[in-house]
């Protein structure tokens, strides 16, 4: 199934990127998380018709991508598939607000055009900042950072497990899908009436898988607590970078 295999591919490619080594990769996950959140808050705090003020914010993704050696193509592909809802809202602004605010040469510029572009730029900037974060930081490091930030350990352990087992379950779903296709006489896709059975089977498989995982964890001494290696304290360079970036965005 196209969806399933492309999901697998994107996981793998982001995970491989996160293994890389560059000045940006070496920053602590905490510093990168801070930079991303401050950046996103700054970007979305602009009023709905601002445009020129938003454009300079593209400097951060451009520079960070160059520093970390993240290929543009991967990120642009991700951004292209993201959030049809944003595009819908942006276009509705374009159609609803047609009053020309002023003329740029012979071209009338309407408020709707400005707010439409503004929403699209904001979406582009926020999405690229988040993708930069995950393409330079491994999920393990991010989870450890979340624990450091006092996010409940139960949630973090469960997040790690979900992340780890997505590929396993996608593989199982793919096997079941292939088996279904081979028996369905050239009809494409899964029929809605078979969906209960299909998803139900997948759910039962997941349930049994979880029981086996629990037994395996028990054999290795799991007692309901989640142990992580202590994170090294934030280095001066991390604090400086995060602080400097935040000040720059403001």
């Amino acid at each position, binding site marked *: 199934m196209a969806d399933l295999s492309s999901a697998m591919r994107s996981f793998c490619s982001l995970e491989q990127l996160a293994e890389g080594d560059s000045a940006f990769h070496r920053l602590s996950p905490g510093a990168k998380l801070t930079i991303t959140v401050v950046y*996103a808050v700054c970007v*979305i705090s*602009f009023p709905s018709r601002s445009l020129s003020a938003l454009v300079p914010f593209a400097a951060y993704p451009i*520079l960070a991508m160059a*520093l970390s050696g993240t290929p543009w193509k991967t990120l642009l592909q991700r951004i292209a598939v993201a*959030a049809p809802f944003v595009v819908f809202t942006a276009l509705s602004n374009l159609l609803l607000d047609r009053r020309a605010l002023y003329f740029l040469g012979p071209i009338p510029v309407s408020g709707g055009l400005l707010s439409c572009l503004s929403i699209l730029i904001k979406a582009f900037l926020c999405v690229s900042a988040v993708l930069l974060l995950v393409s330079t930081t491994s999920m393990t490091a991010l989870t450890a950072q979340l624990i450091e930030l006092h996010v409940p350990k139960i949630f973090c352990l469960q997040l790690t497990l979900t992340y780890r087992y997505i590929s396993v379950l996608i593989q199982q779903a793919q096997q079941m899908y292939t088996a279904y296709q081979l028996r369905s006489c050239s009809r494409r*896709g899964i029929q*809605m009436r078979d969906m209960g059975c299909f998803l139900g089977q997948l759910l039962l498989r997941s349930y049994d898988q979880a029981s086996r995982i629990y037994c395996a964890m028990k054999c290795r001494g799991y007692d309901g607590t989640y142990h992580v290696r202590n994170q090294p304290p934030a280095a001066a360079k991390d604090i400086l970078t995060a602080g400097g970036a935040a000040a720059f965005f403001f």
Partner: protein
Amino acid sequence: MHMADALLSPAVGGAMSAVSAVAIGYSVKKISGKDFDEKQIPMMGVMGAFVFAGQMINFTIPGTGSSGHIGGGILLAAVLGPFPALLTLTAVLLIQCLFFADGGLLALGCNIFNMGVCACLIGYNAIYKPILQRRISKQKITLASILGVVISLQLGAFSVVLETMASGVTELPFSAFVALMQPIHLAIGLVEGIVTAAVLCFLYSTRPELLSTPLEQKKLDRTVSVKRVLIAFALAAAVLAGAVSLYASSNPDGLEWAMEKVAGTTELERDDSVHNAAGDVVENTAILPDYAFSDGSGTAAAGLIGSVMTLAIAGGAGFVIYTAKKKHATH
């Protein structure tokens, strides 16, 4: 139905994150309480992965030529119980936000509320559980899941409308937005509800204990959970009302119009303290409020040239770093 960062204002994003954080904190407390079952953690982890894979399996909707997929909130709550289900769905939404650009970090709070809290806590506790509490049968499972999914999705879609309106980024009038979102999500909800019902009926005939265990657990602390849902409701309502009033105070056109109809004047005596406080919050959260591109073509052209130059400098610097790195790698 994922909300995106670009459609939010910082005030709405922050308020919804706070509401969702409270719901998650409560769920964690509830799960790790005195009857904590350590087996539940791997179960939640794998079920999260199941929902993730399940959302990617599209099925053909007969007679329409289009396809749909499940959301999974009610399904998870039916198998795991409401609180573990909320945590599980939160993890799924976080991973989708990070790896698939669905939503965004600041919109995560909104998405957890719209898709997680509405389905796992409100839809499950208010509809699914009461219908199945006394006796489970296939008919009742079907009714409970269709109603549960439809109502959770309606609540979720309505929250999306409120959050977007409160952020003030869309030109769509409230009524048109609601008239657009609710019927679409009614159709989606019906299809998703039927599929959820089919999955739960399948589980009921193969492993009935999977469905009955979460329902039995809840019988013990029924009063507590109802109270909690009510509190969550009240809290969300208060926060949303606050956010909407912030929006209204910064965009008075619609209000003034309504006031003129009702009172015959746009001026009204009022105690300004709350209004001023709200205005201060808006002013403080908009970091560069006066930097907009809307006051005349002269400034606009200057702004355009300035931003293109900044972009060019940043792009040039990026290009230099890229080529330098490449050269370094080949040496």
